[in-house]
């Protein structure tokens, strides 16, 4: 019996989402006396893979993450060889493409966006976010194989260690039917879905030319920048920065909103944040009701004070 963890381990260092998935998989395995097999892909050094805390690692060196069919064959094949009961993914860009395919292929019930470990006291029950974080739902999975996609920032990472055996996958993944033709870097800084701290701004900034203050605060706090829907719709900021119900949903540790009124659709994308600070000149802005900290004031007066305080904090630590 085993737990399969699929994770993207590429990059300068292993992404937080991958470490969360591994932590989740180890906890599921510990609860059921199983072993953990990490399934991954790409040109990642074997010694790094061996030390991530899995019992065993299978790596498909040639698989492309753009082709969900190749990754699906890979995960489904290893899962069948290992007689896996539970397969864990991150509910991120790659996980969203591959996990549902694996579930359909193996006729496994799939919990997308899980925020708790499974409750196995009677059956197999997992809690997930629904209504863009405005509610949560308990899902019973009744199929023999279960697929779980873990919502990023839902469980704290516990560092793994060990010296797992690392084997190259030798099965046939088929030809890639989706191929990458190129990539374009979209701005500098930290990718929004992974950010621990997010500085976000709205129409209260009056125009795109004033974003320098927002970016400066984000830099000082090592934060990602985000924006509200009107700001993205007016092309003041790129679409990938739009957080909210119809943009990106995020759940950072700290969300600082400047000049955003806090419409229900915006709240839906950020209400999973651990701490919310709201700066708005309108004391009646609905966002204050969802906030932990609030400042009623003009963005152009408040932001320089925040930047100054952040610089002071950085100098002290």
């Amino acid at each position, binding site marked *: 019996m085993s737990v399969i963890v699929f994770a993207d381990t590429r990059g300068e260092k292993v992404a937080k989402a991958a470490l969360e998935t591994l932590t989740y998989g180890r906890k599921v395995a510990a609860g059921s006396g199983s072993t953990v097999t990490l399934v991954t892909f790409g040109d990642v050094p074997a010694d790094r893979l061996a030390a991530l805390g899995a019992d065993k690692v299978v790596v498909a060196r040639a698989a492309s993450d753009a082709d969900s069919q190749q990754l699906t064959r890979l995960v489904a094949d290893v899962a069948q060889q290992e007689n896996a009961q539970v397969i864990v993914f991150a509910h991120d860009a790659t996980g969203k493409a591959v996990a549902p395919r694996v579930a359909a292929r193996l006729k496994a019930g799939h919990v997308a966006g899980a925020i708790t470990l499974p409750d196995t006291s009677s059956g197999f029950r997992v809690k997930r976010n629904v209504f863009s974080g405005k509610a949560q739902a308990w899902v019973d999975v009744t199929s023999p194989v279960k697929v779980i996609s873990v919502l990023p920032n839902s469980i704290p990472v516990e560092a793994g260690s060990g010296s797992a055996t690392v084997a190259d996958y030798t099965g046939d993944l088929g030809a890639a039917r989706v191929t990458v033709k190129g*990539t374009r870097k979209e701005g500098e800084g930290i990718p929004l879905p992974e950010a621990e701290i997010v500085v976000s701004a709205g129409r209260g900034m009056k125009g795109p030319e004033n974003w320098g203050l927002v970016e400066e605060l984000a830099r000082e706090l090592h934060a990602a920048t985000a924006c509200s829907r009107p700001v993205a719709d007016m092309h003041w900021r790129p679409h990938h920065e739009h957080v909210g119900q119809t943009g990106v949903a995020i759940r950072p540790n700290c969300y600082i909103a400047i000049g955003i009124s806090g419409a229900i659709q915006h709240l839906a994308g950020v209400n999973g944040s651990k701490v919310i600070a709201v700066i708005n000149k309108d004391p009646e802005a609905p966002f204050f009701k969802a906030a932990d900290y609030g400042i009623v004031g003009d963005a152009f007066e408040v932001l320089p004070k925040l930047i100054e305080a952040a610089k002071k904090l950085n100098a002290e630590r």
Partner: protein
Amino acid sequence: MKILVLISQVPDTTARIAFTNDNTAYDAGGVQFIVNPYDEWYALVRGLELKEAQGGTLTTVTVGGADTEATIRKALAIGADEAVRIDAQPNDSYEVAVQVAAYAKDKGFDLILAGKETIDHNGSQVGPMVAELLDLPFISLASKLDIAGTTATAERDVKGELEIVEAALPLVVSCAKGMAEQRIPNMRGIMAARTKPLQVVPAVPVDRLSATVRFELPPPKQAVKMIPADEAGKLIELLHTEAKVI
């Protein structure tokens, strides 16, 4: 080109979220239902643009009861040629995907478009599951899509990067913001939608793999702590020493 667009019905984005029957079901009382924004604004409108530019037909498919027909007519009013409703009450995304795949299997669709997720269940599951059940390639989270001949080119926003990918038709694509602009149906479209074909097809048998058993609302927030604007710097201090998040 034959295009299929997956349409789901969801509560309006401003609807109150409440539950009934001992928190086992969504309380739809007084709630306005709409076409899932990702399905409508991005998948349907981009599908229409491609059809208008290159010719062909656009069919929508919805899995649900007769109560979804007003929403389906909205998609017809925006410009779909015909609609299909598969008469089932699915328990999870797999059940939706099995119905859609069973319908689409031998119809020869070149392009199947879905929203990247629904705003109620947020699963992002149906598109890739349909792709798997039909053994088709899948492009997820596309923010731009073009078709030249039988080749699709798409852009995806992933990990702070824009990725440009290519695949041959037939293909399933999940659509995200950026792909198209919302279209408001005009009076002619609304009139025409009344007489466009809306075919109801029976469901195929499907195994149950999972089901939602109970809903919960998140715990209420603590009262907000206000900081005077002239002491704004104190916010950074509190986030560091009290909340310990920076």
